[in-house]
């Protein structure tokens, strides 16, 4: 399965994402730079975490207006799988590929710790490798992960099963509404999540709770 990783100035989790995709898919992902207007023919596009453009203006706001994001939007419209992690999630909401917004953490503090995630919908292309309601572990590291959407959008997300990951067991690190940690778009091929599943894919990481997400998205049987 072929994948591509989007590179932008200020991202710092790109090497983690490249390593995870290489190990899980068996081949190194292509990389695309912010000014690229074309993305190679791939099955999955990943936007890693970090601090694109120094988080200036709003997290992800400037990255979302770069040429490469128009190319990502075109691919997403054609049904290509897209995953945005952390800053990647912020970029996807700023680009309008996912609804809502990620605001400053309610605590006003940067949080870097492990949280628990409940699989809120196991019937998506990203979570079919998990059991419904299963609780997994995942690291988080962010300052702006407080998900918010207006009441109508929230009702739609909840009603259509677009909330995919929820912080579980009182581990919500940021004040996110309804404990939302990750959502998919209405077509189900674009996922954004604040936690870092790419940092928990093998024994050396202390566990492989995040591995099934990438295996599911890449169509690889566990």
């Amino acid at each position, binding site marked *: 399965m072929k994948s591509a990783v989007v590179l932008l100035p200020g991202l710092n989790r790109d090497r983690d994402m490249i390593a995870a995709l290489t190990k899980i898919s068996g081949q190194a992902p292509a990389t695309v730079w912010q000014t690229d207007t074309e993305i190679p023919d791939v099955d999955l596009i990943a936007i890693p975490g970090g601090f694109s453009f120094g988080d200036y203006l709003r997290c992800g706001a400037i990255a979302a207006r770069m040429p490469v994001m128009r190319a990502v939007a075109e691919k997403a419209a054609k049904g290509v799988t897209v995953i945005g992690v952390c800053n990647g999630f912020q970029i996807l909401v*700023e680009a309008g590929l996912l609804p809502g917004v990620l605001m400053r953490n309610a605590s006003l503090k940067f949080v870097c710790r492990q949280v628990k995630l409940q699989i809120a919908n196991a019937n998506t292309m990203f979570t079919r490798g998990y059991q419904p309601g299963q609780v997994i572990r995942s690291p988080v590291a962010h300052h702006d992960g407080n998900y918010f959407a207006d009441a109508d959008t929230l009702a739609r997300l909840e009603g259509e099963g677009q909330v995919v990951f929820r912080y579980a067991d009182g581990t919500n690190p940021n004040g996110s509404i309804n404990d939302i940690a990750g959502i998919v778009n209405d077509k189900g091929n674009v996922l954004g999540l604040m936690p870092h599943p790419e940092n928990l894919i093998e024994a050396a990481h202390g566990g492989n709770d995040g591995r099934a997400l990438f295996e599911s998205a890449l169509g690889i049987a566990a």
Partner: protein
Amino acid sequence: MKARITVTLKNGVLDPQGKAIEHALSGLGFDGVGQVRQGKVFDIELAGTDKAKAETDLKAMCDKLLANTVIENYSVAIT
């Protein structure tokens, strides 16, 4: 031409930064400080003299980049 764009959070959107500032002001002894909401100001220099066109452009800038209209309102003033 110069313009000032003010971006503020919509009513009902939680503003933890404004809340922290509100507490800090009370802590400094400023009595009677009610709710504080934090926003952003952009001072922009523009070529040309057509105010109507400038206003249209500035609003487009807000919609496309300067404000996130999910949670923010904006106002445009040309001087």
